[in-house]
């Protein structure tokens, strides 16, 4: 009897999980379906079966070269992630292993910067970028994306580092390891799974960031978010083309997410059960 209940519960839970997953994935699925429709079909209302035309893809590619934007997206997301890790690993180390009275407050303060609407600082940031010559530069945008995601990266790494017993680091110190040796040769290898999932999440966040990447770029540093934005039209039908552009833009990160889902899930749930 107990087994039957468990099986029944499992079935219900699985079905519920599938329904929720489908609900979450549906907008993406519908975008992909719409990208294989003609503009006329796309605006004719809800329809899950496209005619299967590739015309939107060829028009999108002809209108603005995809690969230039793709290259910028890769460079910005990977570059900003590496920059963020360089800053966040020492920061998280100090907070996890050498906490002060104010460590919790500092962590909360860092997180609170994420609560401010980005548009509130648009003008100051724009002026700083203008005066330092960073407008439409990849390095400027890398720094910006790094700063935006830094609180999350520090928080995630801090949570991982807290799981590592301090005694191991103490042992390394007893063996004469310097601070940097301790971080580079002892802590980092032990935290590789945590760092890897933080990295993956940060790449996804940086890839999808649309506010700053559109506003601080024109042509040289514009990533895929700017590519998508160029297909919305005030006068004329554009849903199919916009869907094709969106599909092209999300495909790489979707594939990467698919292959690394174990790492991602592990990373996001790490430290959740204590």
């Amino acid at each position, binding site marked *: 009897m107990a087994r039957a209940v468990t099986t029944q519960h499992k079935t219900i839970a699985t079905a519920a999980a599938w329904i929720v997953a489908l609900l979450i994935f549906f907008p993406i699925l519908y975008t992909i379906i719409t990208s294989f429709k003609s*503009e*006329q079909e796309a*605006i*004719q209302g809800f329809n899950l079966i496209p005619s299967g035309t590739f015309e939107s893809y060829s028009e999108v590619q002809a*209108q*603005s070269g995809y690969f230039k934007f793709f290259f910028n997206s890769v460079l910005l997301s990977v570059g900003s992630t590496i920059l963020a890790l360089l800053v966040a690993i020492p920061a998280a180390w100090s907070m996890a292993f050498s906490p002060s009275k104010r460590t919790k407050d500092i962590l909360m303060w860092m997180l609170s910067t994420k609560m401010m609407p980005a548009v509130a600082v*648009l*003008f100051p940031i*724009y*002026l700083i970028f*203008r005066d330092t010559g960073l*407008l*439409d530069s990849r390095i400027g945008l890398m720094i910006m994306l790094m700063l935006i995601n830094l609180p999350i990266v520090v928080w995630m790494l801090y949570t991982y580092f807290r799981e590592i017993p301090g005694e191991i680091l103490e042992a390394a110190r007893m063996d004469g390891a310097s601070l940097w040796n301790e971080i580079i040769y002892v802590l980092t290898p032990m935290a590789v799974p945590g760092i890897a999932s933080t990295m993956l999440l940060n790449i996804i966040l940086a890839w999808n960031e649309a506010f700053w990447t*559109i*506003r601080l770029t*024109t*042509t040289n540093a*514009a990533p895929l978010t*700017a590519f998508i*934005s*160029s*297909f*919305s*039209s*005030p*006068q*004329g*039908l*554009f849903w199919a083309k916009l869907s094709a552009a969106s599909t092209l833009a999300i495909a790489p990160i979707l594939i990467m997410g698919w292959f690394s889902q174990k790492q991602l899930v592990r990373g996001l749930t790490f430290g959740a059960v204590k």
Partner: protein
Amino acid sequence: MKLRTLTLGLLSASALAFAAHAESITIATVNNADMIRMQTLTDDFAKANPDIKLNWVTLEENVLRERVTTDIATKGGQYDVMTIGTYEVPIWAKQSWLLPLDKLGDDYDAKDILPAIAGGLSVDGKLYAAPFYGESSFVMYRKDLMDKAGLKMPDAPTWDFIKQAADKMTDRANGVNGVCLRGKAGWGENMAFLTAMSNSFGARWFDENWKPQFDQPEWKNTLQFYVDLMKADGPEGASSNGFNENLALFQQGKCGMWIDATVAASMVSDPKSSKVADKVGYALAPDNGLGKRGNWLWAWSLAIPAGTQKADAAEKFVSWATSKHYSELVASKLGWASAPPGTRTSLYANAEYQKAAPFAKMTLDSINAADPTHPTVKPVPYVGVQFVAIPEFQGLGTTVGQLFSAALAGQSSVDDALKQAQDAATAAMTEGGYIK
């Protein structure tokens, strides 16, 4: 061998020197058919100007507006040419944010620009933006449905006639709505239509002392007429329909009439995308016999921000893109029907264009019927037919648009919407220092 190496070296050095001399200009633009077409035809410009390289930034209209406003207000210098509308030009020119276009070249023929359009893009007699394409609004109607209803659309209909025709054409059982009009909230969406419509009802946004006028009977008549008309003869969910939604409805044969941008004529008459391409007729926007019609005036135009370091190259490009030569170039490659409309008198005098674009005469008459400097029956202190050319209008126009859209959706009454609009406008005008 040495000689060859030396020659190659010299050639590379001169190529490098040339590349270093080449100037690149960045053009910010919106995504519409005419603008995208221009990007495919720039080889012609490159041939005549090999030392100028063009970089394009295409953005969604609202993002473009926000981006160029940020850039121009901070003198960021990211763009050398900006695509802006008739709303921005007078405001930005007065702020000295734009360079006057006085070096467009001897063969440019600025006097050929349609007077109504040139008037909207000039301040103190100086042109601050060159029109790339211009539009007004007019009535597009189904000739077959009019015949079936036993009516004949006059060239210059009244609102009463539109109501009568819409009532007769509405056949909801067969999915036909008598009339499709904008309902989606936004200063450039439903408020473009309603402001232009209100002009023909004798209404105005502000009196001569900038006092808001939504508490006056003219606005009540406008909004009540619009809401009643749409309830009786409009499509379902009209409060979320903008230009594109109505375009799709009309192309699918679901609207008897559609009053919107003249630029839509080429889309509804295109057999590739429109099921009713051979059944469309055109008429001037309706009036109420008060001397003003409900049509607007808009031009997407190219302007040069004051912060640019490359003004000469930018002006050369603006001159090329808005010239008669460009229209001829488009015509030679894609036919006269694709020439950018609504900017030059000579285009409308061209017999080939008139033949290729059956809506040409009505478009020209509609543009000429709009006067941005005297848009209303009673006097007003502002410029603009379907907008008020003050910086506060974008925010206020959208707020009022939301209130009117809610009235159309039945979420509030016409009286409530007007009262709230009056309050919002009074608050915005007081805050802006226009009234005390």
